[in-house]
């Protein structure tokens, strides 16, 4: 479904992605793990066009999207849960969700999808008229995921959904991620530092170091890999 082919991305003169290639199949949960500054978030930013790659190809359903504007990429069905949640603090929960459906025009369906989000995260239903900034961290992450789902993505990019959350919220959110994948058939690309959790929900994984993919394989094989164990699982 998504294919990165030798993608190189720069911040000014600094090369952040030094030729990244990876493949995500339809309906999969793929995780990208790695240490701080490995280039995981940059990879996501490159896919969704906010920091476009300087060379290489990004194919989504057979089409090269590497030169497109971010909003064009969203309209193709890729939606992102940005790192650190980045919800709109002054907009209410419902308005936040409505912004997620910005490119859609089917009012009835949007409403239905909102209800769907409220089923996934019942707490958001209670908070629906509250400004996003007044939610707790975990609720904000739920809102950020719901907001991304409002675009009805085929591919959902999640950037560190566990960041700064209490363990109970992390488990809840990972459960929901699995549920979204299983029930809606949404393909999920999960960028995480919490390698252990990520590899438990993912089908396959990639390990990134210094802007390069250094290891790939099924989640199980990565969990058993000695290098991964030492570097990321702390065993």
């Amino acid at each position, binding site marked *: 479904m998504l294919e990165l082919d030798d993608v190189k991305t720069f911040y000014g003169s600094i090369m952040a992605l030094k030729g990244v290639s990876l493949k995500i199949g339809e309906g999969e949960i793929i995780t990208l793990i790695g240490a701080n500054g490995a280039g995981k978030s940059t990879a996501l930013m490159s896919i969704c066009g906010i920091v476009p790659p300087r060379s290489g190809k990004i194919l989504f359903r057979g089409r090269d999207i590497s030169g497109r*504007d*971010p909003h064009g990429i969203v309209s193709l069905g890729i939606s992102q849960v940005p790192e650190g949640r980045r919800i*709109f603090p002054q907009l209410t929960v419902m308005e936040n969700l*409505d*912004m997620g459906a*910005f490119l859609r025009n089917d009012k009835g369906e949007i409403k239905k999808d909102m209800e769907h989000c409220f089923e996934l995260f*019942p*707490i958001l239903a209670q908070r629906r008229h509250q400004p996003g900034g007044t939610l707790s961290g975990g609720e904000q992450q739920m809102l950020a995921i719901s907001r991304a789902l409002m675009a009805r993505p085929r591919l959902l990019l999640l950037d560190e959904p566990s960041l700064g959350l209490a363990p109970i919220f992390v488990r809840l959110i990972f459960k929901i991620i699995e549920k979204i994948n299983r029930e809606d058939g949404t393909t999920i690309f999960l960028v995480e530092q919490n390698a252990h959790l990520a590899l438990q929900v993912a089908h396959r994984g990639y390990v990134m170091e210094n802007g390069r993919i250094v290891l790939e394989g099924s989640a199980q094989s990565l969990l058993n890999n000695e290098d991964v164990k030492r570097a990321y699982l702390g065993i």
Partner: protein
Amino acid sequence: MKHITALKNSLLISFWFMFLTFPIMVIRVNTIENVVEWRWMNMLYVGFGSFVLSFVWRYLISRKEAGVKQAAAADTPSKRLTERLLTDSAFYRPVQIMAAVFFLAFPLIFSTYQINIMTTALMYVMLGLGLNIVVGLAGLLDLGYVAFYAVGAYSYALLNHHFGLGFWAILPVGAILGALFGILLGFPVLRLRGDYLAIVTLGFGEIIRLILENWNEFSFGPSGIANIDRPGFFNIDLSLEQVTVYLYYLVIGLCLFTMVVVNRLKDSRIGRAWVALREDEIACQAMGIDKTKTKLTAFALGATWAGMAGVVFAAKTTFVNPASFTFMESAMFLSIVVLGGMGSITGVIIGAMILILTPEYLRAFSSYRMLLFGAVMVLMMVFRPQGIIAGVRRMYHFPVKQSEKGIGGS
């Protein structure tokens, strides 16, 4: 103990002021008789005045802090008066009706001079509401708003002078030209925010003014363009009084039009996109909001109203020259928006009325105008930074079904 420290500090301040103003308030050299007058009484006045003022200041600050604490302590958000005025129809309906009657009956009651002043104030309402789109909603600090006002005014002046085109034909042209210049300014500043944006827009405003001042062949330079036609009314010749009244109603109409459009925009999708863009650009992009387009629409739509107001201005004064479009005007528009309350329509109207009408009616204090203006601004920033009427965004309500109310997680 608290009061004693407050007293001590106020006393210190009053001494400081007495010392500071000593050379100008106490000593006066009489150059005719070559003697020095010592006006010790003045020193007393300054001391007493600054003491009282500083005490009042301290009292207000402490009250404000207590208020903040109280609000934080109280768990249920009690609605404030201003909020209630805006959200509860039982409150704002009668006020609205009274305001409508007042404004409609205004020309019947007051003199031509008064009508003229009110027309000016209403023009500033239009300009304030337009700027409110850019500053209040989209959060783009625009210090060159006067440029679009000038574009509107000169488009009417020039097209009328050269081709004899009438007011009604030019009004939309002025609006469109304003929007075009808005986009023209918007493109280079797309990547700028905050202070940097303010500086570039300020420069843009000055560029337009300097072009108008120096390009004699095009704009007739500093001497301006005179004898611009007043707006026609079905080819009937109107007397000066009649034109004044006519213009008044015309501006009222335009104001209403502006209010309706801005109100609709505020609650529309694009309005929410502006607010969202103000809050988080990256999240907006991740939502599929076209940053470029959204920002440019804000600039263009804001500038449209300035263009229209400019046409009205040219028609009202029948004379335009670059001196009417200085940076002071931009500062004035911005003050209206900030004083009234960013993002609030009612606030902008009240802000425009205060800032335009007060100087007219307090001509006696005209030499202290800027001084008072500055003092008021400082006081506002300290005690009511959100403006006279804080912008209350209408919430996006869906009817909650009775059955849904109880359920949902903990």
